Structure formats: structure tokens, C-alpha cells
């Protein structure tokens, strides 16, 4: 059986809000301007054919489709339903799971019904308390979107309570000028979200500016807030990956601490690019010279660009040679290792913060009774259950 393949589907290449840090619209790439605002029927047809073909030829074991944007709900309800219906009619439903990443501002009861009908796992973007959220996540007139986002979250939460949806996930972009603990507590305790992740800001060695000590402090605050509640079944992907890696397990975050996930991005017009999170590295890095209508999964995984990235990511950066966590961290997250001049061979721009976080987490484990020998073996790359063939789960959505 083939691997799980993730496809990030750009249902809409436009957004109804205007986040200041958006990697898609505020970055250097302006490709979206030349693409259809919403996914074309030709692309939907090609997508269904591609999935059916890949499953039939056993190139893929199953697919996870992440409906993305821009804001994916801008596709409109009618077109969204037709797309889901066509997908489920054209491929084995047990081999495809559907997820959606939204800013939640457009959600209403009719959207909830569609999410329920087509078993969509929903994850939303929320940056924390209102002052923090409204600082960056603003509408086209610069006004904060917290209230609209919370209105959408309430509808989602009610649907979870009513058994219509399995749960709702939440992505938070780290802003170290705030307290990590406050942000965590607001999302988990005040808003009741149990599946979430904190994303370090998209940046590379060409663009990073910031105070590393503030990132260290923030991440440790988040870790401690989560660790205090570990018995309450809160799934925080980044921190869960940190603990898992220290104990010889897999990373749950693609491009961090292990093997890359198999993920591609499909534009509204049917162009294919590598995993969307690499976009910050530049158009030339993510470009794939094959259109969806002509692609086989094998041809996609053998493109020069992807193979070069895989080669570079497989090597632990030389700069990490003396680091105690080199076999755990492996140089950090893929995008944060990038520099235009030499690709992905450097250690993470967040190296100092990651080191502090791993050390802090190791202490927490020891204090909780995990044998030091287990951590020592992992640091020395001697863990018996440590596999270099990590499986990484790259989507926060509740599949």
C-alpha cells in the first residue's frame, strides 16, 4: 500500500480579511493575482481523476485533502457542495478525508450543515486574546476580526456539542511580545479548544529579525501551560512533537524532527506546487513543472526540486554537530533552515529558542519520572524504538 498523501487545495485564491503577516498575500509571490479567484471546474475534474488514478495504481494509500485559501469559504456553498459530492462519487470515500482551514469569519449554520454532511474536519486560525488577535488579523479596513472569528467558533463549538462535528482545531501564530501562557489559557480554558498548534512565524535566514530570548520565553510559557494540563487531553502538535522526539517517537509536525510528509499544493487553476508552508522560501523553490491533469504521484515525488530538498533535509546541518539535541531536533523546521544562497543546509533561525525548549521539556520529563537513561539513549541516537523513517502527521485538522 502506498503512503498517505496530503493535498492542499486552494479553493479560493482571495481572502475576505487582510492579515498583516499573511505568507500568501503579503509575501513576495504574487502568483495568486493571475489565478482564478476560486477553483475551476476543470481543476476539480483533474483532482478527482488524479486521486482515483493514484489509488487505483496503488501509488497512494489514502489522501487527506486540506481545503485552503486565501479563505476557502469564499468558494461559496453551492460550489463547495458540488465539489464534495463529486469527490465522494468519484473515489473510494474510505480513502479520502476532507479537512478545512478557515478564518471562521464567514461560518454560519448552513456551512455547519455542509461540514456535517461531508464529514469535514475544521481547523480555524485564531491568535489568542482580542488585543493580540486584532493586532495582526484585520479586515480590509484594518479593523480587528476577533469578534467575527469568535462568532464562527461559537457555531463550531455548538456543532461539536450537538454531535454534528468531531471537534475544532486551532492554529496560532506565535507573537513573542505577548505571554505564551495567557494565549494558551485563553484558547484552551476560555474557549474550550482541545486541539491546537502554535506556529513559529514563517521566516528564513534571508528574512528573520527578532529577539531570540523572547521566542524562548514564549515557547517555554506555552509548554508549561500545556504540560500543566497534560492529563486533560489537550493536543498541542508542536509540544507533543517535542516530547515525542525526546522519548524516541515521531514528530507530528511535517518538516520538523524527521522525514518530510508527502504534501503538494493544488492551485485554483490546477498548477501544482510543493507543500504550501515552503512558499516563504520563494516561487522557484516550490515550483513543480507538472500540471495536475498530467501528473502521476510518482512523477511529482521525483521532481528535481523535491528531491533536492529531501537530500538537504536528510542531512543534519554541520552547525548542529556539537549540539546535545542534534538527533532530536535535526536542525529545526525545514523552512527555518532556508537561505537563498545555499538552500536548506543551515540550522534553524530559531535555534536558540528550540534548544531552550528541548532542554526545558527534558527537565519536565525527568521531574515527572521518565528515566534519564531513556532520554540519554535518545540524545545519543540509541533509542531502540527510534525509527529514522518517521511518519509525520502534517495537518492539524481532526482526521
Amino acid at each position: 500500500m502506498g503512503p498517505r498523501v496530503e493535498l492542499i487545495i486552494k479553493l479560493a485564491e482571495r481572502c475576505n480579511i487582510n492579515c498583516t503577516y499573511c505568507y500568501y498575500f503579503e509575501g513576495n509571490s504574487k502568483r495568486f493575482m493571475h489565478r482564478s479567484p476560486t477553483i475551476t471546474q476543470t481543476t476539480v475534474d483533474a483532482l478527482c481523476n488524479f486521486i482515483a488514478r493514484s489509488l487505483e495504481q496503488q501509488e497512494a494509500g489514502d489522501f487527506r485533502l486540506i481545503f485552503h485559501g486565501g479563505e476557502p469559504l469564499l468558494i461559496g456553498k453551492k460550489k463547495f457542495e458540488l465539489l464534495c459530492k463529486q469527490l465522494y462519487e468519484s473515489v473510494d470515500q474510505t480513502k479520502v478525508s476532507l479537512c478545512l482551514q478557515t478564518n471562521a469569519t464567514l461560518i454560519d449554520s448552513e456551512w455547519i450543515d455542509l461540514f456535517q454532511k461531508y464529514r469535514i474536519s475544521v481547523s480555524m486560525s485564531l491568535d489568542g486574546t482580542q488585543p493580540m488577535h486584532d493586532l495582526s488579523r484585520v479586515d480590509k479596513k484594518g479593523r480587528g476580526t476577533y469578534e467575527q472569528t469568535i462568532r464562527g467558533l461559537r457555531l463550531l463549538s455548538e456543532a461539536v456539542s450537538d454531535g454534528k462535528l468531531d471537534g475544532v482545531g486551532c492554529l496560532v501564530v506565535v507573537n513573542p511580545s505577548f505571554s505564551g501562557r495567557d494565549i494558551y489559557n485563553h484558547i484552551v480554558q476560555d474557549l474550550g479548544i482541545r486541539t491546537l498548534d502554535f506556529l513559529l512565524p514563517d521566516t528564513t535566514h534571508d528574512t528573520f529579525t527578532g529577539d531570540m530570548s523572547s521566542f524562548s520565553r514564549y515557547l517555554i510559557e506555552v509548554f508549561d501551560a500545556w504540560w500543566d494540563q497534560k492529563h486533560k487531553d489537550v493536543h498541542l502538535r508542536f509540544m507533543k512533537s517535542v516530547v515525542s522526539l525526546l522519548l524516541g517517537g515521531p514528530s507530528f509536525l511535517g518538516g520538523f524532527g524527521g522525514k518530510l510528509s508527502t504534501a503538494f499544493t493544488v492551485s485554483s487553476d490546477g498548477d501544482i506546487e510543493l507543500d504550501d508552508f515552503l512558499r516563504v522560501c520563494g516561487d522557484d523553490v516550490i515550483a513543480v513543472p507538472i500540471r495536475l491533469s498530467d501528473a502521476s504521484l510518482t512523477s511529482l515525488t521525483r521532481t528535481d526540486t523535491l528531491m533536492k530538498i529531501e537530500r538537504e533535509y536528510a542531512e543534519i546541518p554541520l552547525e548542529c554537530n556539537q549540539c546535545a539535541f542534534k538527533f532530536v531536533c535535526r536542525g529545526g523546521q525545514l523552512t527555518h533552515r532556508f537561505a537563498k544562497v545555499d538552500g536548506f543546509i543551515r540550522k534553524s533561525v530559531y535555534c536558540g529558542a528550540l534548544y531552550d525548549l528541548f532542554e526545558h521539556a527534558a527537565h519536565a520529563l525527568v521531574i515527572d519520572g521518565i528515566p534519564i537513561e531513556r532520554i540519554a539513549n535518545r540524545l545519543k541516537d540509541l533509542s531502540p524504538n527510534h525509527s529514522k523513517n518517521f511518519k509525520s502527521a502534517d495537518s492539524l485538522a481532526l482526521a
Partner: protein
Amino acid sequence: MADNSAEIQDLLAKLQKAGAKISSEPPPSNVSSMSGDMLTKLDHLKITPNEFNAWVSWSKSF
């Protein structure tokens, strides 16, 4: 070529100190129906036995 063994030793020494500090502290006296090791662990975690069982299960999931 330099490796990371020296830094690992430094780190393990720090972890050893953290572990030793926990194991050397006496169990609380207000709960008497559990073993000493468990009492010590629960006291430091400041959680109930049920919550601790959930944590053991959770930590095994990795």
C-alpha cells in the same frame, strides 16, 4: 571531528540533578493509602491519582 558527547554529558548532569532533587524529597504525610513512590510523584505533580493514571496512559501513547 567535534561531536556532541560533551554537551550531552553536561545536559545529563543537569537532568540528573533535577531528578535527584525530586526523589530526595519526602512524601507528604496527609495521604496514607498509597505507596511512597506514588505519593512523592503525585505530590510533585499536584494532581489526583486518576489524573496521574491518565498521564501515564498519555505518556505511553508516544
